[in-house]
């Protein structure tokens, strides 16, 4: 059934897709709840970008592994331990500053990732990465501009922005942890070793923090496990909502 992919290239792409899907779904939870109608639409756009990236990554992974799975099976028929997303992206939306801080952190990691992946020796992957990098450039700008305004805004918005970074920073080290699979796909020129992305991430984050007049959180020992399928309690609740329809009515179509 829905086992972990036996093809390392597919397994690695599914990891990227998992993070994009989970964050995309999280953002979609803001629909009709955002502070303004403009931001409501903006958040939905960001969510749709991520879900579009997921579809491309999943589809190509399914083609590579050739096990007869498709994107819907990956999204709707797997349980928490089979998801390999970063713990950062499954964290609840919290307040608006929490969501924007989470998104800034993710975009500052994903942009250099996709930029590097645009040089993949797999033409399809390179194409997906090129398009995704363009989208993540906008995501980074949107989240960055908001964090600057929240940080350099009122006393209350500043406190909330700083608190958001402090709360989420524990999930930062995991973004740059590399395991055997990362090293394997990077060595063959197919994928990217995430540990190489840290300098670009730091530069992007520092640029925003400086303009936002916020402090960089002290980096303690991080929390990780996403790459192994060990998740926080939040993912299961999210999947229960996201997968409900396909679980209750398998193969339902429009």
């Amino acid at each position, binding site marked *: 059934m829905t086992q972990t992919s036996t093809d390392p290239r597919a397994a690695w792409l599914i990891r990227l897709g998992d993070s994009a899907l989970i964050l995309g779904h999280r953002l979609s939870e803001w629909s009709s709840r955002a502070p*303004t109608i*403009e*931001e409501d*639409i*903006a958040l939905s*756009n960001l969510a749709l970008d991520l879900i579009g990236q997921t579809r491309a990554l999943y589809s190509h992974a399914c083609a590579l592994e050739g096990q007869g799975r498709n994107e819907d099976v990956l999204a709707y028929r797997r349980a928490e331990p089979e998801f390999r997303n970063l713990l950062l992206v499954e964290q609840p939306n919290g307040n608006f500053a929490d969501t924007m801080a989470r998104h800034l952190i993710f975009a500052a990691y994903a942009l250099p990732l996709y930029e590097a992946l645009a040089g993949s020796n797999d033409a399809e992957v390179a194409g997906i990465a090129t398009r995704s990098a363009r989208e993540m450039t906008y995501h980074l*700008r*949107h989240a960055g*501009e908001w964090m600057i*305004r929240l940080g350099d805004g009122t006393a209350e918005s500043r406190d909330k922005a700083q608190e958001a970074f402090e709360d989420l920073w524990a999930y930062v080290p995991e973004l740059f942890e590399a395991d055997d699979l990362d090293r394997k796909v990077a060595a063959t020129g197919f994928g990217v070793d995430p540990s190489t992305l840290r300098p670009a991430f730091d530069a992007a984050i520092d640029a925003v923090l400086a303009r936002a007049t916020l402090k960089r959180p002290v980096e303690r020992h991080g929390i990780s496990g996403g790459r192994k399928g060990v998740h926080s309690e939040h993912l299961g609740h999210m999947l229960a909502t996201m997968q409900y329809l396909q679980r209750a009515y398998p193969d339902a179509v429009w």
Partner: protein
Amino acid sequence: MTEKATPLWEVFIRPRNGLAHRHVGSLHAVDAEMALQNARDVYTRRGETFSIWVVPSAAIIASDPGEKDVMFEPTASKIYRHPTFYEVPEEVGHM
């Protein structure tokens, strides 16, 4: 965030195949940069846009609707200002 803190902006978009920016609507945003981002998200979702202008609504000087008779009524009776009295020769074709 209160209404007072988020000014209104007018959005003008130049479509891919258009020559001029056209007014498409308005939105709220804290400043010019965010107004541009919001305009992108609200009004350009279907890939039809080449360029965006945002203008603070307060910067627009509008005519007074109460004065419309003074402003526009006199033109209504001057049909000779419309170029409808010319015979267009066949050879010119569609103008």
